[in-house]
C-alpha cells in the first residue's frame, strides 16, 4: 500500500508575494494546505528598546520605519499618544492638517495595497495605474515637508510647518480627480471573472473569530464589524467630521477589497470637509517640547533625596508611573502606543501594538484547509507590512 506523506515547502522569506520578508512553512497534501507556520522577525530592529533610550521628540523618526508605506499615519499615532501623555493640546489648524495627511496616507496605503494584491493574484494593469496615482500623493508630501517616504512631518503638539495655497490647490485638484481613478481600478477588476473566482468565498473569517483574533481595520470590517478607532475614540479632527465606516458582510477576500475601495471614497470626503473647514491659526502648540527636550530627573516621592538614581537603587521610590495607551486608526488597523512614564523625557516603556503583527498571526487560521494558491490571496487581503510586524 502506498504511504501518504505531506510535502512541506518554504514560501519566503524572499518571495515577491509575501510583501517583505515573511516566511511561511506550508505542509501540503496535494494542493491543500494542511498546516501553515509563519516565521517573522527578519526585520526586527528593536524599535521599542531604541525608543526607551531616546527622548520623546527623538524617537519620532523611528516610527516612520514601522509601516514605511504609510509613515505619516505612524507619526500621527505617536504624536497623539505623546500629547495625551504629556497633556499637550495641538491647535485646531494642526489637527485638521493632520487629519488631511492621515487620510491622504490612507489613500496612498490602499493604493499600494490594491496594486500589490492585484499583482499577486495576476492582474498586472492595476499595479501600473495605481503607482501612477500614488505619485501625486507623494508629491503632496514633498510639497509640505520635502520628504516623500519617511516624512516625520507631524510633531508632538502640532505639525512641523504650515501648508500653503499651492498645496491646497493641488489637494483640491487631487480629490476632484481621484474618484475617476477609483472607477478605473473597478472597471479593471470589480467584475473580472478571474478576480471574482480568486477572491469570492476565499479566506473566510467570521465576525466573532475576527474579533477574537484581534483583527482591526478593513480586515475586521470586511467581516461586518463596524469597529473603527476614529469613531470609537476620536482623535484629531475626526469628531468634527462626518463620515461613514464601510463594512462588508460575506467575510471573504472580496468583501475586504470592497471595504477598502469604499474607504477611498470616505477618505476623499473627509479630506474635502477638512480643506473646506480648515481653521486659521498656529500649527504648533506653545508648550510643544523642543527637539532637544531636556531629559530631566525621575519623579520622586516626597522625602526622597533628589539626585541621580543609581543602578540597583530601589526604583520604587520614584513612582508613581504614568501609564497611557493611545490608539489611532492607521490604514492597516489599530496602531496603539502604550507608554509608561517616570517623569523624565524618556519613556520607561514604549510598546507598539502593530496591526500587521496581529494580522500576520491569523494567517494559519485563514490558510489551513485552503488551496496553496489562495495563500497568496490571503497574504494580500490582511494587508501586512513586515517592517511594522517585526518592529
Amino acid at each position, binding site marked *: 500500500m502506498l504511504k501518504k506523506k505531506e510535502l512541506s515547502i518554504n514560501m519566503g522569506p524572499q518571495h515577491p508575494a509575501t510583501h517583505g520578508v515573511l516566511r511561511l512553512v506550508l505542509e501540503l497534501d496535494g494542493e491543500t494546505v494542511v498546516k501553515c507556520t509563519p516565521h517573522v*522577525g527578519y526585520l526586527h530592529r528593536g524599535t*521599542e528598546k531604541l525608543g526607551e533610550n531616546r527622548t520623546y521628540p527623538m524617537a519620532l523618526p523611528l516610527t516612520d520605519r514601522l509601516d514605511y508605506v504609510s509613515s505619516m499615519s505612524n507619526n500621527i499615532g505617536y504624536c497623539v499618544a505623546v500629547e495625551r501623555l504629556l497633556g499637550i493640546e495641538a491647535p485646531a489648524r494642526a489637527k485638521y492638517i493632520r487629519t488631511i495627511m492621515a487620510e491622504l496616507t490612507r489613500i496612498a496605503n490602499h493604493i499600494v495595497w490594491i496594486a500589490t494584491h492585484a499583482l499577486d493574484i495576476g492582474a498586472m494593469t492595476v499595479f501600473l495605474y495605481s503607482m501612477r496615482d500614488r505619485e501625486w500623493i507623494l508629491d503632496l508630501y514633498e510639497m509640505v515637508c520635502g520628504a516623500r517616504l519617511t516624512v516625520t512631518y507631524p510633531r508632538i503638539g502640532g505639525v512641523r510647518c504650515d501648508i500653503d495655497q499651492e498645496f491646497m490647490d493641488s489637494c483640491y485638484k487631487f480629490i476632484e480627480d481621484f474618484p475617476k481613478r477609483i472607477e478605473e481600478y473597478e472597471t479593471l477588476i470589480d467584475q473580472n471573472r478571474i478576480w471574482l473566482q480568486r477572491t469570492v468565498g476565499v479566506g473566510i473569517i467570521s465576525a466573532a473569530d475576527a*474579533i477574537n483574533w*484581534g483583527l482591526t481595520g478593513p480586515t475586521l470590517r470586511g467581516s461586518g464589524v463596524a469597529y473603527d478607532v476614529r469613531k470609537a475614540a476620536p482623535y484629531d479632527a475626526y469628531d468634527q467630521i462626518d463620515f461613514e465606516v464601510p463594512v462588508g458582510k460575506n467575510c471573504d477576500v472580496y468583501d475586504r477589497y470592497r471595504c477598502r475601495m469604499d474607504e477611498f471614497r470616505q477618505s476623499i470626503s473627509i479630506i474635502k470637509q477638512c480643506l473646506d473647514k480648515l481653521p486659521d491659526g498656529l500649527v504648533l502648540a506653545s508648550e510643544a517640547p523642543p527637539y532637544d527636550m531636556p531629559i530631566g530627573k525621575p519623579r520622586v516621592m516626597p522625602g526622597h533625596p533628589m539626585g541621580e538614581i543609581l*543602578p540597583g537603587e530601589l*526604583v520604587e521610590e520614584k513612582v508613581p508611573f504614568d501609564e497611557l495607551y493611545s490608539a489611532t486608526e492607521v490604514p492597516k488597523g489599530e496602531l496603539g502606543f502604550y507608554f509608561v512614564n517616570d517623569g523624565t523625557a524618556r519613556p520607561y516603556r514604549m510598546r507598539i501594538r502593530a496591526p500587521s*503583527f496581529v494580522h*500576520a*498571526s491569523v494567517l494559519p487560521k485563514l490558510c489551513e484547509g485552503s488551496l496553496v494558491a489562495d495563500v497568496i490571496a490571503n497574504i494580500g487581503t490582511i494587508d501586512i507590512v513586515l517592517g511594522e510586524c517585526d518592529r
Partner: protein
Amino acid sequence: MTPRAIAELIQSKFKPEVAEITEFGDQVSVLVNKTRILEIMSFLRNSSELYFDYLTDLCGVDYQGRKNERFEVVYHLRSILHNHCIRIKAAIPEKDCKIDSVVRIWAGANWHERECFDMYGISFTGHPDFRRILMPDDWEGHPLRKDYPLKSDLGEAEWKGFKEVLETVERNKKYEVR
C-alpha cells in the same frame, strides 16, 4: 460603563486578588494577583455587562530594582459591543517567572504572549506553540529587560555565527556555476 466602575466591579467580585487600582487621565489600571488570572479574564470575557471580546494588546514591563515583583504583564481589553476599555496588570516575580496563558480565551493573545516571552523571558503555561518569535531561536537573553545592554559588550569581537556562515559559503563554492 466608565473604567472606574469596571475596576470597582472587578474589585467587588475578586476582592483578595486586586492589589491596586490606579488612574491616569481617563484610563484605569487594575493590578491583580497572577494566580487566578484565567478566572478573572474569563469573567471579563463572558460577563454580559462587561463583555471584553477584544484583547487589544498584551505586553510585558520590567520594573527592575523595585522592591516587590519585578515584571508586569499588561492586558489592554476592549469591548466592541459596549465601547469601553480597561487595563489589567498582573505582577510577576523574577523567581517564579510564569503566568497562565489566555490564548484559550482570546486567540489573538498567541503571538503577543510569544513576544512577551521573547522580550522578557516570562513563560506562559498552557500556550499551544511556545517559542521565540522576533529573535532567532538560538538567541541568548531577553532584549527588553532593563539589564540587557543596549550595545554589545564584546567590543570589536565578531558575531559568533559569522564563522559558521563563512564555512557554509566555503562549502557551497563547489556548486557555483562559473
